[in-house]
C-alpha cells in the first residue's frame, strides 16, 4: 500500500533526511523548536540535531535573514522558516539586495545556498496581514528561485532539491495543504526545478493552479466533467524557473487558458504565465484569463473572505463560460455563482481554530 504522509510530515521528513545527510544544513526561525513545530514541519528536529542547528530566533526577520545569508556565505545551508509569508516584507532588503544579487554583484565569487520557507497563512479570519501570497515579488527579481509544491510528494522532493541547490530558493507553502495527505515514498528523491506537472489531462481548457489552487482546479475539473467539459489541470510546481513549455503545449491543444493563483493578479504570477504563453504562441487565437485574490485587502469576516478567494465553483464557472464562448466580463473575480452544487473544499471545511 502507498505510504501516506501529510504535506507537513513530508516537509519534516525531507528536512530531517537532509540534516542527517549533511551537517551543514540548519533550520532557523521563530518557534522552529517549540512544541507546535511550525504546524509539525519541524517537530523533533531540535531533539535530534540540537539547538546549534535548530535555532529559535528573536523576532528580527531582517537581521535573521542576513544571518542566514552570512551563514550560507560561510558554507552552511540554512533553511529559514516563516510561519507567515507576510513577515518576509520585513526581510525584502536582505532577500532582494543581497541573497538574489550576491553571486552576480560579486562576479561569481560566492554563492548563497539557502532556503526560505514561506507559508501562506489562509485558514479563516487571518485577515489583512496573515494571508498574503507574495511569490510574485520573488519571481520579479533575478537571482531567486521560487517553488510552490502543492502535494506531499512534491513537497518532499522539492524541499530536498531546494536544500541542495546552491542558490537562494523561496519555498512557498500553503497552510491549508499542510494537513492534506498524499503518497510520499520513504526513499530520498529530488524534483528538479522548472518542470510543471500535468495533474490531469483534458482537451477543452487548460487550468493552471498555483499552490493550493492546484487542488481547487482539480475539484473544478470534476464539476466541469459533469457538464461534459474536459479540463487539463497543470500545477507549475516551480514558478521561477517556470516550465512554460508544458503549459504552452497544453494551451496549444486546448486553445484556452485559465490561471488561478492564491495571490493578487496584478503583476502577479498569473499575469506572468499568461504573457509567457502568448509570447510563446505568438498571435494564435488563444483566450487567456486569470483568477486570484479579489483586488482588495483580505477581509476577516468569513462571508466576505469566501468571496475574496477563488474556489472550485468559481473556477468552474469561469472555465465553463470560456469554453462555451460566452463573453466573460473582465472582472473575473466577480463572476456570479454558476449552477454548481455548493460543495466547499475539504481543507476549508475541516479547518477549525487558527492555531
Amino acid at each position, binding site marked *: 500500500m502507498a505510504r501516506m504522509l501529510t504535506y507537513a510530515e513530508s516537509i519534516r521528513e525531507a528536512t530531517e533526511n537532509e540534516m542527517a545527510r549533511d551537517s551543514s544544513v540548519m533550520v532557523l526561525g521563530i518557534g522552529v523548536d517549540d512544541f507546535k513545530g511550525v504546524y509539525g514541519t519541524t517537530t523533533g528536529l531540535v531533539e535530534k540535531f540540537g539547538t546549534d542547528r535548530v535555532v*529559535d530566533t528573536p523576532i*528580527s526577520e531582517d537581521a535573521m535573514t542576513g544571518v542566514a545569508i552570512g551563514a550560507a556565505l560561510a558554507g552552511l545551508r540554512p533553511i529559514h522558516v516563516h510561519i507567515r509569508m507576510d513577515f518576509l516584507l520585513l526581510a525584502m532588503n536582505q532577500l532582494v539586495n543581497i541573497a538574489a544579487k550576491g553571486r552576480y554583484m560579486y562576479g561569481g565569487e560566492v554563492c548563497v545556498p539557502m532556503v526560505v520557507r514561506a507559508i501562506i497563512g489562509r485558514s479563516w479570519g487571518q*485577515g*489583512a*496581514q*496573515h494571508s498574503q501570497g507574495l511569490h510574485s515579488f520573488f519571481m520579479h527579481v533575478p537571482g531567486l528561485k521560487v517553488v510552490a509544491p502543492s502535494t506531499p510528494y512534491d513537497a518532499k522532493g522539492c524541499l530536498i532539491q531546494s536544500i541542495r541547490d546552491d542558490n537562494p530558493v523561496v519555498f512557498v507553502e500553503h497552510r491549508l495543504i499542510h494537513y492534506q495527505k498524499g503518497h510520499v515514498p520513504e526513499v530520498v528523491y529530488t524534483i528538479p526545478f522548472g518542470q510543471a506537472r500535468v495533474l490531469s489531462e483534458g482537451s477543452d481548457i487548460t487550468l493552471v493552479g498555483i499552490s493550493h489552487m492546484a487542488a481547487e482546479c482539480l475539484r473544478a475539473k470534476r464539476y466541469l466533467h459533469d457538464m461534459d467539459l474536459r479540463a487539463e489541470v497543470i500545477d507549475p510546481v516551480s514558478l521561477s524557473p517556470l516550465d512554460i513549455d508544458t503549459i504552452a503545449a497544453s494551451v496549444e491543444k486546448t486553445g484556452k487558458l485559465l490561471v488561478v493563483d492564491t495571490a493578487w493578479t496584478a503583476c502577479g504570477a498569473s499575469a506572468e504565465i499568461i504573457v509567457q504563453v502568448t509570447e510563446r504562441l505568438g498571435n494564435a487565437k488563444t483566450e487567456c484569463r486569470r483568477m486570484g485574490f479579489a483586488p482588495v485587502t483580505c477581509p476577516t*469576516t468569513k*462571508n466576505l473572505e469566501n468571496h475574496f478567494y477563488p474556489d472550485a465553483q468559481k473556477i468552474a464557472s469561469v472555465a465553463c463560460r470560456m469554453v462555451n464562448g460566452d463573453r466573460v466580463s473582465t472582472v473575473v473575480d466577480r463572476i456570479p455563482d454558476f449552477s454548481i452544487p455548493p460543495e466547499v473544499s475539504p481543507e476549508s471545511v475541516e479547518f477549525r481554530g487558527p492555531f
Partner: protein
Amino acid sequence: MVENFYRALYRIRRVEQEIARVYPTDIIKSPIHLSIGQEAVSVGVCEALQPSDVVFGTYRSHALYLAKGGDLKKLISELYGKVTGCAKGKGGSMHLIDTAAGFMGTSAVVGTTIPLAVGYAYALKQSGKDSIVASFFGDGAVEEGVFHETLNFAALKGVPILFICENNGYAINSHQSKRQPMDNICERARVYGMPAERIEDNDIFEIYERVERASSEIRNGREGPRLFECMTYRWREHVGPNEDFDAGYRSRSEAQPWFESDPLKTLGASLEIDRRGQIEVDVEAEIYEAFVFAEESPFPDEDELYTDVFTEA
C-alpha cells in the same frame, strides 16, 4: 478610583472569558490573543490618560480597546464578523479601531504600530495640541529593529509619547531569555536618552501613578518620550482560548504568584460587597447585551468586499 479600576478590570476579564467560552463553537472566526491576567496594564495606563489622548496597540488588544473607552458592542460584533463591528467585520480581533475613543488601531505584525504612534505624536506636537500618545507592545517587539529606529527618532524630536512595554515574559512560546541576552528593556530605551522605568508585579496602582506623573510631564510638550516596562503574565495560551501549562514551555507553578496577586481579586476583596455586586451585575448585563447585539447583527453584504480600498475624493 478603586471602584473604577475594579469595574474596568472586571469588565475586561469577563468579556475575554465570554469570548473564550463561545470560541470553541467557532462562531468567532478570527484568531484571538487574550489579555487575561494582563488587564492591569491597559487599565492602569488608560485611567491615567485623557479621553483625547491616543493609543496604538497590538493583536493582543481587547483589554486596551476597552480600557481606552472603545465600544463593547462594536468589539464583540467585530469578533463575530458582523457589519456592526468597529471595522465592519473586515478587521477581526487583530485589527481593532475606535477613533472616537482615541483608539487608533492595532496590527497583527509585531512592532508595526510603534512608529505609527510616534508619527501621530509628532503631528500632535506640531499642531500644538495638548494630547499625548501611548504605544503598547510586547517584550518580543523590542527585538524588531523598528523599535530602536522609532525610539531614536522619538527621542531626537522629543515627541509626546509613552512607550508601554507589556512584558509577559514570552513571545509565543519562547521565554525572553531565549531571545534577549539581557533582561534590560529599560536600558534599551535609556540609550536614547529617555527615562525608562520598570513596574513590577502587575501593580495597577503603581502603573496608574507613574504613568499619570509621566504623562503630565510630557503633556506640556517640553519633555520627550518615556518608556515603562510593565511586568505582567499571560494566563492563557498565546493564541486561542485555552490554558497551556501542560505544553511544556512553562509551568503552572511559574504562573501561581500571578494568579495570587491578581489585581482583580485583591481589588475585589477590598470593595464593599454590595458595591462590588452592583458593579458586577451591571457589567454582566452590558456584556450579555453586547453578545446578543453581535449575534443579531447582520454580516456585511457581499458588496462590502469592494469598499474601503481607497478613500474617494
